[in-house]
């Protein structure tokens, strides 16, 4: 936790108020008749890692899908409230595709697209219209390096992404999420399908990426949020129980008793 490069290091005392990257105001989400997020409001500061913890069905994944608006693909989902990225309402953006490119998304299970490793990473830039091979080469290498996968695959960029091991595929997924140079990176329980060693490697990657982007880390591993996040939000049944710096959340006296109980494995 020593390598903070951002201005929002926890417990850093009196600092100018950090820039708000994402603001969520009174977000409600219903699937059909069932409301799964009940009026959630919070902010994500620029260049921080925001940990989001909470048990299954607490609305963590749905929350991410609201931010990059892939929730639109769910037919019966109804969203109300406002989500702003850099002050811009995501539901009023001109191009939802540009919005999604500004937000990198990593799914729980690694998804190697059935393309070559190179094409997996070049996919997003290509859909955005980048064609020049040289530019793509540079970008692909940069993203694979950022995801700490380059050394393992640099000699076989033409082989299939789907043939990589699970951990490699997850890093490939991260490389793909970085390939459209997002300002926000959302990781949804990225470590559930990969081994601890790979997990630690990716965590190191995330620590480095913090200087370049804002990271939302949804995780069901409380300790992962503790290791990585600057602040952590505890979601419980579609409501924010508590959002505070890690010092408070993981202390003996968080503001809400449920937080203490969840973090310490008494409930959840």
């Amino acid at each position, binding site marked *: 936790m020593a390598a903070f490069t951002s201005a929002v290091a926890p417990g850093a005392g009196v600092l100018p108020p950090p820039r708000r990257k994402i603001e969520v105001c009174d977000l409600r989400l219903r699937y059909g008749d069932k409301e799964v997020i009940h009026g959630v409001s919070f902010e994500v500061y620029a260049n921080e890692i925001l940990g989001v913890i909470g048990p299954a069905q607490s609305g963590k994944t749905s929350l991410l899908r609201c931010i*990059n608006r*892939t929730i639109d*693909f769910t*037919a019966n989902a109804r969203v109300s409230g406002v989500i702003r990225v850099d002050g811009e309402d995501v539901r009023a953006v001109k191009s939802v*595709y*540009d*919005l*999604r*490119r500004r937000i*990198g*998304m990593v*799914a729980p*299970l690694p*998804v*190697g*697209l*059935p*393309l070559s490793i190179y094409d997996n990473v070049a*996919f*997003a830039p290509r*859909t*955005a219209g980048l064609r020049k091979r040289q530019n793509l080469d540079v970008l692909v290498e940069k993203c694979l390096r950022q995801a700490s996968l380059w050394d393992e695959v640099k000699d076989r960029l033409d082989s*299939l992404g*789907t043939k990589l091991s699970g951990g490699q595929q997850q890093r490939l*997924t991260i490389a*793909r*999420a970085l*390939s*459209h140079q997002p300002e926000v990176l959302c990781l949804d329980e990225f470590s559930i399908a990969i081994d601890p060693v790979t997990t630690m490697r990716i965590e190191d990657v995330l620590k480095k990426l913090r200087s370049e982007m804002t990271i939302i880390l949804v995780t069901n591993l409380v300790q992962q949020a503790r290791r990585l996040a600057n602040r952590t939000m505890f979601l419980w049944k579609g409501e924010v129980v508590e959002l505070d710096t890690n010092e408070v959340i993981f202390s003996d006296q968080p503001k809400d008793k449920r937080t203490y109980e969840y973090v310490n494995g008494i409930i959840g």
Partner: protein
Amino acid sequence: MQTDAPARFAETPFVRKKRRGELLARCVFGAMTLAMIVPLLLIIGYLVYKGAPLLSWEFLTTNPTNGMRKGGLWSALLGTIWLVVTSLCVSAPIGVFAAVYLNEYAKDNWFTRVVHLAVVNLAGVPSIVHALFGLGAFVLFAGLGRSILAASLTLAIMTMPVIIASTKEALASVPLSFREACWNVGATRWQTIRRIVLPNSISGILTGVILQVSRAAGETAPIMFTGAVFFKKIPEGNLFAYSLSDQCMALSMHLYTVTTQVTNAPEALPYAIAVVLLGTVLLVNATAIVVRVYLRSRKKW
């Protein structure tokens, strides 16, 4: 197991029962497979055996003469090819693209479900009903007359629902997670379909389309009222001897007329026609299999 201490892996009655059940299941399924293969082989063997005296290259490339009793079946063979190709040119694009829309774009609501149900039911409509529809819609109403075009459109209407259904199936077999991954990086639906969904379902789509060739080639009823004729003489050896507004002969129809209308036809003739019809269909299906094997060897997950 005649040891004093109970052996560790002794067979219990339950294990024996399971093994008997396993054996029984295997036998039943195997027998069913055999029951399927044997008649098929018998049919093909019988047809080839009976039709052999007439089968020759000349049989394929000459017109029937002498009231169908002599000569070959060139005009019927070419007619069938024209009918099948024309109908596929219509039904394949419409069917495949409609399926892409239904599977990838359409929202899941009652209307889509009704459309889906309609497609499935349309696939089960007897071909004679399609024939009457074709007669009414294409021959009479659209004024196409009895022609290859009218007959092909009728065949297209008949094959389209099945193409839609099989294409939908092939598209649905591409995991949703691939699509979500694409959407997450800002790809449009069309970019996702073109780069990921179609390349990975094309083998299934092609299989579905090509299997409809056999149906289009084999059906007699839909073309009987709409464009196929008893006899038509065309220049031999010219693949473009027909035009879309012509009437044509067709193998299935030819077989039907030779067996029921023509007296004193050589005994081998119907069998030879059947072999050619079957051979044409098998040839197309074999192409489908080759294409599928090739595409599947490139399957990527």
